[in-house]
């Protein structure tokens, strides 16, 4: 039961991935695409934690932590490029 609910949660998060990816492909301006990428990285962190739970391996969380610490770097880099500070 509880496992099933977490599977459903992963499915719901995947729907979010699809929507944000659609914005990423469509997005009229660069800023829209960057917002979509930001959203996607955060959803990815949760997905990775769920994968760690499915596999019952605590070590997989290290990968999620790398994204948790570094994911904002890419967005800030694009933002700084856009405003002419890179």
């Amino acid at each position: 039961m509880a496992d099933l609910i977490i599977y459903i949660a992963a499915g719901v998060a995947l729907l979010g991935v699809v929507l944000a990816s659609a914005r990423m492909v469509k997005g009229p301006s660069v800023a829209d695409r960057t917002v979509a990428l930001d959203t996607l990285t955060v959803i990815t962190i949760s997905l990775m934690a769920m994968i760690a739970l499915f596999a019952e391996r605590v070590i997989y969380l290290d990968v999620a932590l790398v994204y948790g610490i570094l994911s904002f770097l890419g967005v800030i880099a694009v933002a700084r490029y856009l405003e002419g500070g890179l």
Partner: protein
Amino acid sequence: MTLVMVLGAALMLVGFWGLITRQNMIKMVLSLAIAETGLQLIMIAVGYINGGTAPILDSAVDKLSAVQQVVDPVPQALVLTAIVIGVAVNALMLAFIIRLYQKKHSLNISDYKDMKW
């Protein structure tokens, strides 16, 4: 042939297609990076064993029966370094492009025809 292998092969095709058809040199390096990702995916998929777990023998994997549980660690070790090397080599290619740009002020590969041979 697993799904990930199909994806890896398709990414390699897409990458090489971009490498051949694009004129912009930075786009070509980007295509090469995508082809690299495809190759790495294929290598990891080759080492995967159905139902296997990561080759790290912590409390979740029994040390004695590990041989039955884990996936092949050798391709992982090879891909691991390949990714870091790949990014450094991409940087080297981009440095060449910056240098070329300073000579001719163009990113189009067709403008460098005189450098053939």
